[in-house]
């Protein structure tokens, strides 16, 4: 009975969204305040209905109602509570319900923004509701989460054990906030095309939405990568897997958009380009959904392999992307840009080059992702495009971006002369040369290691000097708590923090990619072996029972310079319900690097096969991503304070 209520509310949300779209289309030509209010209330209703529906689905997972197909397929009564709840979105149907929940919440949030122009807001809400309606149809017609089963299972089949992990419980919601957040900037762009008006306020109002979805995407991708690192036991953190790429492409576009919107805000140029990027950002989110959900792929990520779902998503894409692109082709010529001149060495050209490289990078990833899929489906030939392709194409594109990133903040807008530029470049070059030299003295460093490490250092010095220059120039004093935020927004610290994140990230890559040491071999209890200067001793082996699994666990003692550092306990877990096995790598995280041990097969006689790594600076990769996301969030608040002009400095 209870699941049926959830189902009814989902249908109600679908019907109400259809009514709103009809009403919206009818009223676009002659907008009045009443129509806007009606649409706003409709948005609230959709959001509430979907929230009720989602809560009911979560409840069904919590009480393990196995009469629901997705509960019996993805849950188990013995599963820990956190994974019962996260099981709600650990499957195709439930994750789509989460998708629409986030979409409707974002739409509701936008509808509360008073500063957005009425005409624009009306169009935005209409476009958002149209997307919502398409996705509700997708859920109801092809992926109903409330489907009952004829035979009530006695026990659930459990959640894929690989997914029973705290890192992964929050990976999908974060990614979805990112994907769906991009729908808001998309609707802003479509709204601008419909109303035919664009101004600096438009750019100011769209920016926080890009910042917040960019931050969420960054965190979501980082969580996924962190999970892959410690759970899959392959020792890597990024595999250029099509599903990873599917989330990476919207990120690249969002990054480009985040930068180009600055020019629009400041100078009101590149209007069409920003509109196109906004449309593309969400298009790539949809493309990602299509690749993952259509059954084109078989990997850890693909829950559903049903081509009819793919057809439906294709139709959604045609309507929600094709439509705006037609609108773009027809109407983008109406935006008149002021004639603005700028130097070759100016913020405008730096941001333009940034955009050029980021879109090229996106295209590179897109080709690398789609080409093998298409080739396989059309000719049956199986090729794999792996790190070799991306190292050769993606990395060279990123190099100039990093070089520019350190210098760009010192450049001036337009025709203005950039002060201190030569001094800064001299400083950067000098310090980087020293860094490159010291890197080359490290054992086993290659030319690429030196380049990568030096770039990280170059950026780091650039960011720090920019920060101090700004503090000197602003000449503000902090006297009240409230003014701290104003201070931050004056300085634009968000950008510094995000760029610092990139420098940290690059340092992490340098360590992990070029200075990693590996051990692999058979060892028995009592044996010892070295990785780098660390001594590992195989202490014992035991079998244990977990809440819903059995485990084989080895214990290693780690010594460095004859000093005890800690224990490492790699496990192999067997989940009887799901009939599957997972490898739990043991990781001892340190500031300078991780010691990582994976337990393989073996027995008492011949020993166990052991793989061990020392990954220098690897945790910097995720710390870097965290700083980037933090930077994005800070710039979200900057915006808030700029618009709230009532706070004054004292």
């Amino acid at each position, binding site marked *: 009975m209870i699941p049926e209520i959830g189902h009814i509310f989902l249908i109600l949300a679908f019907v109400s969204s259809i009514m709103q779209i009809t009403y919206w289309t009818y009223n676009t030509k002659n907008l009045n305040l009443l129509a806007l209010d009606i649409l706003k209330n409709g948005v609230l209703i959709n959001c509430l209905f979907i929230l009720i529906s989602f809560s009911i689905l979560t409840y069904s997972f919590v009480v393990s109602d*196995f009469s629901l197909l997705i509960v019996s397929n993805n849950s188990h009564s013995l599963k820990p509570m956190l994974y019962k709840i996260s099981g709600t979105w650990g499957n195709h149907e439930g994750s789509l319900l989460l998708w629409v929940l986030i979409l409707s919440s974002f739409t509701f949030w936008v509808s509360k923004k008073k500063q957005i122009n009425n005409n624009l807001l009306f169009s935005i809400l209409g476009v958002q509701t149209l997307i919502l309606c398409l996705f509700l149809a997708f859920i109801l017609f092809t992926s109903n989460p409330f489907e009952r*089963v*004829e*035979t*009530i*299972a*006695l026990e659930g089949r459990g959640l894929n054990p690989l997914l029973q992990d705290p890192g992964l419980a929050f990976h999908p919601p974060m990614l979805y906030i990112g994907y769906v957040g991009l729908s808001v900037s998309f609707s802003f762009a479509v709204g601008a095309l419909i109303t035919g008006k664009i101004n600096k306020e438009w750019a100011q109002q769209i920016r926080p939405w890009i910042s917040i979805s960019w931050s969420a995407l960054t965190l979501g991708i980082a969580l996924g990568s962190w999970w892959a690192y410690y759970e899959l036991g392959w020792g890597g953190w990024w595999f250029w897997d099509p599903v990873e790429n599917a989330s990476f492409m919207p990120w690249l576009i969002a990054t480009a958009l985040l930068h180009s919107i600055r020019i629009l805000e400041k100078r009101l140029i590149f209007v*069409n380009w920003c509109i*196109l990027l906004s*449309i*593309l950002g969400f*298009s790539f989110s949809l*493309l990602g959904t*299509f690749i993952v959900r*259509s*059954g*084109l792929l078989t990997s850890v990520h693909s829950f559903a392999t049903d*081509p*009819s779902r*793919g*057809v439906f998503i*294709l139709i959604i*894409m*045609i309507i929600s*992307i*094709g439509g705006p*692109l*037609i609108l*773009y*082709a027809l109407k*983008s*010529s109406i935006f008149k840009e002021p004639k603005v001149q700028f130097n070759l060495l100016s913020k405008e050209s730096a941001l333009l080059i940034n955009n050029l490289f980021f879109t090229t990078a996106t295209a590179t990833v897109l080709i690398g992702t*789609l080409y093998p*899929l*298409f080739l396989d*489906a*059309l000719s049956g030939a199986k090729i794999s495009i792996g790190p070799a392709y991306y190292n050769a194409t993606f990395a060279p594109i990123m190099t100039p971006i990093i070089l520019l990133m350190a210098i760009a903040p010192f450049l001036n807008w337009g025709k203005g002369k950039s002060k201190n530029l030569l001094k800064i470049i001299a400083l950067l070059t000098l310090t980087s040369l020293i860094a490159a030299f010291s890197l080359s003295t490290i054992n086993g460093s290659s030319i690429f290691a030196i380049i990568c490490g030096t770039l990280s250092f170059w950026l780091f010095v650039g960011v720090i000097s920019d920060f101090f220059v700004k503090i000197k120039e602003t000449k503000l004093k902090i006297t009240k708590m409230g003014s701290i935020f104003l201070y931050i927004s004056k300085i634009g610290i968000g950008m510094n923090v995000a760029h610092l994140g990139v420098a940290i990230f690059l340092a992490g890559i340098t360590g992990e990619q070029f200075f990693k040491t590996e051990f692999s071999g058979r060892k028995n209890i009592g044996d010892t072996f070295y990785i780098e200067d660390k001594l590992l001793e195989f202490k014992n082996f035991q079998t244990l029972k977990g809440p819903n699994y059995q485990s084989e666990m080895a214990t290693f003692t780690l010594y460095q310079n004859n000093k005890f550092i800690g224990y490492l306990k790699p496990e192999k877990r067997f989940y009887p319900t799901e009939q599957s096995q997972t490898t739990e790598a043991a990781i001892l995280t340190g500031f300078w690097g991780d010691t990582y041990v994976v337990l393989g097969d073996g027995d008492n006689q011949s020993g166990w096969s052991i793989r061990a790594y020392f990954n220098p600076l690897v945790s910097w990769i995720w710390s870097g991503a965290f700083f980037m996301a933090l930077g994005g969030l800070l710039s979200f608040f900057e915006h808030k304070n700029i618009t709230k002009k009532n706070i004054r400095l004292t």
Partner: protein
Amino acid sequence: MNTKSLVLRLLPLILFSFIIIVSGLVLYELKKKPTKKNLLTSQLIGKKIPDIKIQEADNNLENNNKNLNFKKYKNKLFAVNFFASWCAPCRVEAPIVEDLSKIIPVIGIVYKDKPNNTKKFLDDFGNPYDKIGIDNSGKIAIEWGVYGVPETFLINEEGKIIYRHAGPLLYNIFKSEVLPIIKSNK
């Protein structure tokens, strides 16, 4: 209008259409490939019935402290049906189980149920069962590899499981699958 800028403005649409067309082709190819039917096959088919003691129910459906005796059915084709009063599909299949019981003996095993409710269920929908066993702990269901209630097994003269159906025994399944097996084994 400037043709050059028109081409530029159409370019995203053209690229997008290209991707859509190729994706459509890929999906079409995927759809053509035959998909495997997802059948629940039992490990137990062709094997003897699980060697586990089942408590027999008395007339009030309480435990009568006797074990269910399968000896009576030696050299006979018979069916075992797992059911419960709380299970809605069991009500759906009740008339068909009734039909089945007219051809071969059916043993019912009541899964995690209260005696009073079972009694009421059998009073309402009829009692087709030759004997009824009790599975309060769910242990027997696990031994038999039961996926859920209702579930029906056919056991041949040698005491081997020859057929298993998970879910309600609907009329078309009864006619197309169960009856032919009974005929060929008689």
